[in-house]
């Protein structure tokens, strides 16, 4: 190879010599692996804890079959319904709050660049807070029960939905609005005929998507005491009733799949 390669300065780096690159690559990989190992040690991820835990986990999994409803299927179904209710109520609250915020966040509505930037950054910051973190504090404030969960879901969604709404408004076509304006209609009718028909289906489809994801989030909020199916799961995991856990999880997955299906159908019709 060195025979064929042209002399030093004109040679493209790949042809030059493979060694420095290879060494650098190996070195970088080794450094990354070392860093990863250091982190694992820092987190006390020792093999023996992994092993003992795994055998325990194996016993848990073994006790999952056959799944059983524990003679309480009615209660389980009711709490599933409650979880769905939380998701719907949380999504609805979030939509109501996010609509005006989205309007304010759209560059086409608030044209001041600095204001727009600050507002959007603000939304970005709150987008990072997961629903569970909100739930924890709302339960402490409002007591156990689905209400805290609903508010937590809404709080977690508002910045996300507001950002989506704002982007939808920014991306809409100005043509229809101008068309209506040229016919001499008032501002409200410009929005009614030019903007709403464009934006409404997109917003509706985004809301459906958030309903889906809220159903997943709502299920876990019960773990910190916000009612619903999460509460039932938490109770059963604490008493190691894993056959019932398996039953609830399977049922829940079925519901998720069903909701996804319905929502996909609806969204396809909106498109």
């Amino acid at each position, binding site marked *: 190879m060195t025979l064929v390669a042209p002399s030093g300065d004109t040679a493209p780096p790949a042809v030059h010599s493979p060694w420095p690159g290879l060494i650098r690559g190996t070195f970088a990989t080794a450094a990354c692996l070392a860093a990863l190992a250091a982190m694992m040690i820092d987190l006390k991820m020792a093999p023996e804890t992994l092993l003992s835990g795994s055998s325990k986990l194996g016993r848990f999994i073994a006790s999952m079959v056959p799944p059983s409803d524990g003679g309480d299927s009615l209660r389980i179904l009711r709490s599933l319904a409650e979880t769905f209710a939380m998701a719907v109520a949380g999504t609805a609250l979030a939509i109501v709050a996010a609509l005006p915020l989205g309007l304010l966040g759209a560059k086409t509505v608030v044209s001041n660049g600095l204001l727009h930037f600050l507002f959007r950054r603000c939304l970005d910051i709150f987008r990072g807070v997961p629903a569970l973190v909100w739930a924890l504090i709302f339960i402490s404030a409002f007591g156990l029960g689905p209400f805290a969960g609903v508010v937590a879901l809404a709080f977690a969604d508002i910045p996300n939905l507001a950002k989506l709404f704002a982007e939808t408004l920014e991306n809409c076509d100005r043509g229809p609005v*101008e*068309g209506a304006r040229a*016919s*001499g*209609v008032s501002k409200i*009718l410009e929005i009614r005929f030019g903007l709403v028909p464009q934006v409404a289906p997109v917003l509706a489809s985004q809301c459906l998507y958030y309903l889906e994801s809220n159903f997943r989030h709502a299920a876990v909020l019960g773990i910190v005491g916000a009612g619903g199916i999460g509460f039932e799961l938490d109770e059963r995991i604490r008493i190691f009733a894993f056959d019932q856990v398996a039953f609830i999880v399977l049922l829940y997955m079925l519901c998720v799949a069903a909701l996804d299906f319905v929502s996909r159908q609806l969204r396809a019709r909106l498109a």
Partner: protein
Amino acid sequence: MLELKDLSKRFGDTLAVDGVTLSVGRGELVGVIGRSGSGKSTLLRLINRLAEPTDGSVAWDGAPIKGLSGKGLRRWRHSCAMIFQQFNLSPRLDVLTNVLVGVAAKRPLWTSMIKFFPASDRARAVLELDTLDMASAALQRAGTLSGGQQQRVAIARALMQDPSIILADEPVASLDPVNAEVVMGALQRACRERDIPVLVSLHSLDIARRYCTRIVAMAKGRVVFDGPPSALTQTIVDQIYAGRNNRPSLIEDEATMEVAAA
């Protein structure tokens, strides 16, 4: 009678429209031609105030347009229908509603909000569509139609406004030849039957020559020619499209090619 006097529009450093003085009478079909960027679109948009003039005045039958605002401005826009290159229909609304937007300004707000229009309006809209051969599509979503069909719907909307003047901004630039003929024919008919002025900005010199009763050519925001199509000689055309003071254009304009072929 539409009168423009010393009309100007400045965007930043450039004068898009530079001191245009023009008067257009009833029954005139005026083709506004010129290279892209010569200010023809802006000129039309200054008339119905989709763009605010920087200087000069627009008057309709002696009444000034410039000071209008609020309801007065909306009434002026209503009587001065506009047709756009990209149709500017609401693609998700049905064709009928799109046409009825043309009368929405004259109906009570709340009925328009729920898209309710009296049966007489509906009947008129259907008849307007029928003359453009579009009645059968009245209940379809506008977005499902082809470009030519959408432009016909846009014309029906414009005619619903009972306009006393029609502005058409490159109405045939994105259409195939057959639809372009239909659309130009409809504008010509509206101009003759209603005896109103129609201003059409056009890309193609050939169409302008065949349909218009008068041609106004613009270059760099100024009117450089104003007269009947027959007076538009080859020298003038060269002057408009090549531009004496410009460096020669690298892009072959469609219109110049047509003229060269003729």
